């Protein structure tokens, strides 16, 4: 492609398949306490890569 450079691919749908384990950090505990910032949280699902 000469007109488009893809920086990050389609991650959302695949992430839902084994998602929702609930082990990741509660976003408000990390620093904010007065706002909501979720997209910088790390996934902590230890099983997703093993199955």
């Amino acid at each position, binding site marked *: 492609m000469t007109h488009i450079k893809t920086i990050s691919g389609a991650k959302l749908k695949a992430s839902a398949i084994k998602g929702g384990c*609930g082990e990741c950090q509660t976003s408000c505990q*990390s620093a904010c306490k007065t*706002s909501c910032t*979720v997209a910088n*949280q790390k996934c902590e699902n230890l099983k997703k890569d093993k199955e």
Partner: protein
Amino acid sequence: MIHKYTQNGIYIVLDIHSGAVHVVDKIIYDLLDYLTPPLSETIPQQALTALEEEYPSDLLKESYGEIYALYQDGLLFTPDEHFTVRTDIDSPIKAMCLHIAHDCNLRCDYCFASTGDFGGGRMKMPFEVGKAAIDFLLEKSANRRNLEVDFFGGEPLMNFEVVKQIVEYARSREKEFGKNFRFTITTNGVLLDEPKMEYINREMSNVVLSLDGRKEVNDRVRHRVDRMGSYDQIVPHFQKFVQMREGDYYVRGTFTKYNLDFCEDVLHLASLGFDQISVEPVVADPGEPYAITEEDVPRIQEEYEKLATVLWERKKAGKAFNFFHFMIDLEQGPCAIKRLRGCGAGNEYVAITPDGDIYPCHQFVGDAQFCMGSVLTGELNKELKHTFATANVYNKKDCPECWARFYCSGGCNANNHKYAKDIFTPHKVSCELERKRVECAIFLKVMERLQEE
């Protein structure tokens, strides 16, 4: 749905439902204005007609070919998957904000906790309440392994012996229950002496250090009890602590209408030697003189953009620091399910007052209609918990049409309630600022990637 924007001459396109991020040239950027899914194999005549004076038709057709290829690969104009929020099962509670002291040794003008006591009188949490809270968390966390406990206030260092007792008690039960406790603490630094620094370094996975930035900015709103500014007393404590610190920390400031040039405060904090920085908009009644109101939004958006540019310049010069609201993980970030509901307040996350009452989060404390129960009796209002569990980006007002919903997850429910008296109605000013922050965060990721290549 797509979202496109330009920043510092870079054309960026987000495909909202796949999560893909693209950098495009001007012709693609312009073409996208004339395309609506479903796309056909050939370029729509409407697009050709609209752009034929600006670009040769062969170039338009070639460019459209690239757009169509991404469309077929599920990377552009991807339809909404309508991810499902499960509310038929009761989510475990896995995170707790312990209000270890409803008392404070500062008197900050904008304090949402009414200078520390949350409107309910000054009080410290007895160990028995903290112990009951840990027992409650162990019981309600079901199969969740990672449990978070934040020591909050007021000022938690005013009741530090109880903090230590609670940590010791929780650690004593970790193995038996197969849990991993992560403790965090939020402090104004007044009482942060060396023994406390050593203890916090050993036991706390993250520490939030409250400081607003430049001395005159900090001291205008963050007063000591004697009305003197707090900057001179606190900064040396934080600098010493950060030098000793091995784990995570944030120096966290609040900006208000008084310092809409908050980029200067972020840079001031960096100049003090701090490299993990969060500076966030004040939450306040619109009538307060320091409150951020709709008229301030363009100025703040401009300031965020300026900060992103400065951060990028510093990164290139090897002098980077982290700004919390510009951190984004495009590769290993939270799953789609997490992104539907955000912080989990009132559902997976609760706040506990010094006398054991349970609230959806620290910002609801003191509002009796949101008291969910007590850790002393074990009583929990499941109906209220369910209400919070159901709040997500598909049923909140405006979120279904917003391109940023999978990045912000529907905003802060406490802010929503504060401004609209409804957790399902996002606060417009907060939304506009969050959208700008997401754009800046993605811009910085894009610049990093372009430089790598």
